[in-house]
């Protein structure tokens, strides 16, 4: 039992240390607020620089012309880079989306066993791989075999990067579809494949689109794998088996040139790229993530959306 004297002792002690504890609490709160500010400052600075420097570079020629010769007066534009990035996104989606969605269907509908868990685990691991390693791998397996840098090689590398993202979001959004939907389908005597494709996929549509869009946003900014696969070029694309240019690659090349005009163009290309990526990210958030439940999707992937 606590005697009255002991209780008085406790109270005295409490009064003695509460002041110090509150001060520590205040200091921690201010520090934590400082951390948030520290993280927002670079973002603000990047946005400010990209906007002010990038808008200055914009013109119709800049968007449509081929780059001028290095160091010459004709600065040209980034037309091939924009074309290349769009072509790469389209082709990678052609490879990555069907495989990713089918894989996601497997994980969600047939994956409740040891094999499913293994695939899920390694899929998560693949999502965090250094992308440059995937570039080197594609170089060894496709570029060396075929003998030339090509759009195909670039798309294959990018499709490997987008695959885990699509697979994971597909799985998560299919799992959000209530079992009763599936049971209703089975009760009508519909085949399992039709239940999955017609009922479950339709119900999970917005989640699927979210996953695909986030994967597209992620791959459109990837540079490292492209060095090894499409090489870069200053001409418009002539075929799918030759080297092409891409926006991130062009930014990298421009940044290493010692001319002011190249710098300006680099900022301009960065502006286009960042607008594209932010538009996808913000658009997805406002169009699809509004619905309850799907907002968990992004975090299920351990923040794997860059």
């Amino acid at each position, binding site marked *: 039992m606590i005697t009255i004297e002991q209780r008085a002792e406790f109270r005295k002690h*409490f009064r003695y240390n509460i002041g110090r504890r509150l001060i*520590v609490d205040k200091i*921690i*709160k201010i*520090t*934590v607020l400082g*951390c*948030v500010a520290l*993280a927002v400052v*670079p973002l603000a600075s*990047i946005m400010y620089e*990209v906007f002010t420097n990038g808008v200055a570079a914009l013109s119709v020629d800049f968007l449509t012309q081929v780059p001028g010769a290095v160091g010459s007066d004709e600065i040209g534009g980034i037309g091939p880079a924009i074309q290349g990035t769009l072509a790469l996104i389209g082709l990678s989606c052609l490879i990555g989306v069907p*495989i990713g*969605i*089918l*894989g996601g269907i*497997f994980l969600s*509908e*047939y994956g409740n066993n040891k094999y499913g868990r*293994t*695939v899920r*685990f*390694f899929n998560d*691991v*693949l999502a*965090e791989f*250094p*992308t*440059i*390693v995937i570039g*080197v*791998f594609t170089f*060894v397996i496709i570029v060396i075999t075929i003998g030339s840098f090509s759009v195909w090689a670039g798309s294959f590398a990018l499709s*490997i990067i987008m*695959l885990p993202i699509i*697979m994971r979001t597909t799985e998560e959004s299919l799992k959000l579809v209530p079992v009763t939907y599936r049971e209703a389908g089975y009760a009508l005597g519909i*085949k*399992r*494949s*039709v239940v999955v494709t017609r009922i479950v996929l339709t119900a999970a549509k917005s989640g699927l689109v979210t996953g695909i869009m986030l994967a597209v946003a992620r791959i*459109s*900014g*990837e*540079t*490292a794998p492209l*060095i090894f696969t499409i090489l870069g070029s200053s001409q418009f694309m002539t075929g799918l088996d030759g080297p092409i240019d891409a926006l*991130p690659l062009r*930014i*990298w090349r421009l*940044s*290493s040139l010692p001319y002011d005009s190249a*710098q300006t163009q*680099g900022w301009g290309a*960065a502006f286009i790229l960042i607008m594209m*990526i932010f538009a996808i*990210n913000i658009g997805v958030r406002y169009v699809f993530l509004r619905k309850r439940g799907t907002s968990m999707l992004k*975090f299920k992937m*351990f*923040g794997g959306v*860059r």
Partner: protein
Amino acid sequence: MSILNIKKSSGKTDKIFKIAALASATYVLVIIAMIIVNLTSGSASVWQKEGLNFLTGSDWNAVEGRESYGAAPYIMGTFVTAGIAMAIGLPISFGIAMFLSELAPKILRTPISFLVELLAAVPSVIYGLWGLFVFRDYIQSWIEMPLHNLFGDNVIIFSGTPFGLDILTASIVLAIMIIPTVSSISREIMLAVPNSQREAAYMLGATKWEVFRMAVLPYSKSGLIGATILGLGRAIGETMAVTMLIGNSTGSAAFPQSLFQPGQTMASIMANEFAEASQGGLHLAALIGIGLILFLVAFGINIVAHLLVARMVKSHEGAVLA
């Protein structure tokens, strides 16, 4: 009759569908296996010539006839830059996670986590561009010069004239890049701590910080370690920003000693020297070999991280059920 027909055909399509799904899922495993096989075979010639010296040597010479490849400086460079980035980025990330999960008023939570996630959406090459043309000047005149003037050449890690493109700059930009990853995972993990834990601590008269330290932190420890390791994996594999900012020295000069000295990481040497390497040569094999080392390191790190995070999530599911 027609019902029977449906049954018959349904078995077939279902089987085909299941096999297609199974094949797509297996594709992931096949890709990982093929990465290991191809990188090993692609770099076989350099392992044959250099042996273990490839891991421990610091000579890097691509001149025909005097070729010698040692990747030790780049392996060290990778770990040093990632380590410094973690040292800077982790406290900030945990601070943000704590703010978002414990302190922030409801109105602020969504916009701030949105801003932090936008930071994650910025492509690495744009971080590099920003670091090269903007951040470099600030860091050189505000951080590096004062540190250099204060300690001079007496302290080895601050020796050498700061140039702006060095290990410190690359590490700080790397820290900025891992903050969104680590903070958004940590926030999720902290939010997963049951409120009853917090309420118990509040009931004992704890302040917010004490609640965090005594109730939230112990509960989410293994998840936070997992988040840290995932951040580390990302920092180790990051290529473009580091390549543009680290200054790119080669050979034993790249061995990290001073913060103000140009360095090189495994990823950056691959990006830098790839264009110079001729196909089928030893130089290319050496670069692929570095890719193999980087792959194995990142693979190991990610496996450990996912095991930790998965265990955390599982224990939570158990707690919710119980």
